[in-house]
């Protein structure tokens, strides 16, 4: 039995993939000698050497271009973009090149690559190092989108992402890096597109992702303990592919749905999920779907400002209580 942090799970899962397959390479800024700015890649350079673990200049287009080109001819690169916010400077390679090339080439080209990146708020880094950007990639056909909420999911989903023949963007939550979990066996594989039901309940259903899945679970435990309200919590784990069958099954139990999203309000993933639920389950719903999101603003920096911006456990509890009281 080993106690692993989320950050250890990242390096361990990459190492496991690299041991199994010498086609797996890893590149990014400060990932080798430095072990990553979040210390999530410590030990990889030492174990695999500089031909497989490549420190790069601050050149995000060059990083993702190299990963893409290498994957076109059979390698399986894992590329790190240090903060997800930096995806904006290489978005052409992501959205125009990586996402479209298989389709445009009529299937001549396959792109088995993983882009892993530190996403989300909680560190008070301000508006250019704290965004929650999984929606950007969800909106682009041709990208798979993963966002693990705990250490064992990091391992299982990373293993699946590296094995997947399509490009995967892997959003690690920077506030979850210190999270610890006892993991018996690290030989894990979680199919992309399989949501996790964190808690069962028939009074309401929360659909969530990443850090928000952990906060939703905490909120649901409070609701159960203090108010005897049983909430089911679905951690989507991947946005593309989306586990629609689990969503449908869980929503039907209560007919009362909340999405908890870290992204700013407009066009967050919850908007798409809500729209699908309304289309497919309109008659099962007992009320409007409530979206609990960050307001539609860039993120502020100071403790009190950031803490009051992204959804908190208290806000989730209060929103669900208010809705049920009004019900």
């Amino acid at each position, binding site marked *: 039995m080993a106690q692993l942090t989320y950050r250890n799970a990242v390096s361990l899962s990459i190492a496991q993939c690299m041991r199994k397959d010498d086609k797996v*390479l890893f590149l990014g800024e400060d990932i080798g000698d430095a072990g990553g700015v979040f210390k999530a890649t410590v030990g990889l350079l030492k174990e695999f050497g500089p*031909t497989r673990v*490549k420190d*790069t*200049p601050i*050149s995000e*287009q*060059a990083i*993702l*271009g*190299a*990963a*893409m*080109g*290498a*994957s*076109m*001819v*059979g*390698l399986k*690169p894992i590329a790190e973009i240090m903060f997800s916010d930096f995806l904006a400077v290489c978005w*052409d*390679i992501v959205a*125009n*090149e990586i996402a479209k*090339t*298989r*389709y*445009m*080439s*009529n*299937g*001549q*080209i*396959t792109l*088995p690559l993983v882009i892993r990146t530190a996403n989300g708020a909680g560190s008070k880094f301000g508006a250019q190092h704290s965004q929650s950007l999984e929606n950007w990639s969800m909106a682009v*056909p*041709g990208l798979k989108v993963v966002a693990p909420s705990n250490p064992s999911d990091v391992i299982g989903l990373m293993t699946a992402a590296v094995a997947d*023949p*399509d490009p995967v963007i892997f959003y690690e939550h920077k506030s979850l890096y210190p999270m610890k979990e006892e993991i018996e066996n690290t030989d894990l594989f979680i199919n992309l*597109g399989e949501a996790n039901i964190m808690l069962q309940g028939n009074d309401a259903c929360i659909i969530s992702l990443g850090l928000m899945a952990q906060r939703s679970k905490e909120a649901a435990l409070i609701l159960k303990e203090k108010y005897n309200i049983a909430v089911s919590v679905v951690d989507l784990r991947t946005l*593309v*592919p*989306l*586990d*629609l*069958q689990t969503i449908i099954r869980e929503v039907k139990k209560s007919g009362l749905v909340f999405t908890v999203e870290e992204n700013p309000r407009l066009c967050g993933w919850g908007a798409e999920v809500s729209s699908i639920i309304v289309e497919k389950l309109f008659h099962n719903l007992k009320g409007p779907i409530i979206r609990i999101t960050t307001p539609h603003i860039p993120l502020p920096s100071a403790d009190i400002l950031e803490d009051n911006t992204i959804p908190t456990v208290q806000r989730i509890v209060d929103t669900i209580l208010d809705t049920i009281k009004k019900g």
Partner: protein
Amino acid sequence: MEKLNDDVGESIRLELWKQLLTLRLVEKKAYDLFLQNLIKGTSHLALGQEAIGGAFGVVLEKKDYTFCTYRGHAHTLSRGASIEGVLGELMGRECGLMSGKGGSMHLTDVKNGVMGSYAIVGAHLPIANGTAWASQYNNTGAVTTCFFGDGTTNIGAFHEALNLAKIWKLPIVFVCENNLYMEYTPIGDVTAVEHPAADRASSYGMEKIIVDGNDADEMYRVAKRTVEKARKGEGPSLIEAKTYRHSGHSRADPAKYRPKEEAEDWINNKDPIKIYRQRMLDFGINETIITSMENDMKEKIEQATEVCKKSSIPSLDLIHKDVWANGGSEWHN
């Protein structure tokens, strides 16, 4: 006759001539087909720039990789892509290289090493580094070539890619085709240095190479030298080939921004095909060989055009095909 035994030699000259003919005559056919409205959308012809891609086509081996821009018909053909594959793609037919899913600006023919044509200026330089990196890692000896225009030298991806190629000592040759105009604007008006690619080479520890891109022999020599260097593991090169496009930037552009005398001089006096025809005669190659190759090529292109016209239009199934490696486009269960 001893002139035939210069460093290029007769058999290579005939290969170069075949390349020039293919690239010129297919491109002219593409232009005719636009006029007949059999090709829709946009297109960017490489008329006048054939010696550059053509020379690399002669030098490269089957295992090597080529990356093209949206002006990529010629470079795709230079690697041995079929004429009906190229024209069929332009015409949106099933027989096209990608059965109509990519179009003129995205020609791809992996089995011939053409790893795609990219329509975002500069994007393919970093990607080309990737195949070069894979060749280096797998020790295959394959070389990657990446073609682009002068306008590309002012976009960030150009600089990121050259730096990475140098620090990783990648087996890659970057080829800037300086046709003097960045779309509609003279490149000199918008560039801090006189030679947009070559003057930047020293920033990345590379040799300054400027070559007459309309002289197929000169292009052959520089292609051979730089490809051999890459193949030996001695790292990347950056070539600036001076050239001129005979037509506008794209189908929509009559190129009125260029002085008439300048265009006439390039088209009449510096045309790579005219230059090379005379070169072959000067080296004693029989004119009947030259002309019969020309006639054979015209005939081959006519036949390919007929194949394309008879080819079916793409099946609607293709719309949802190949977003993912499983062949489909599903995003949920």
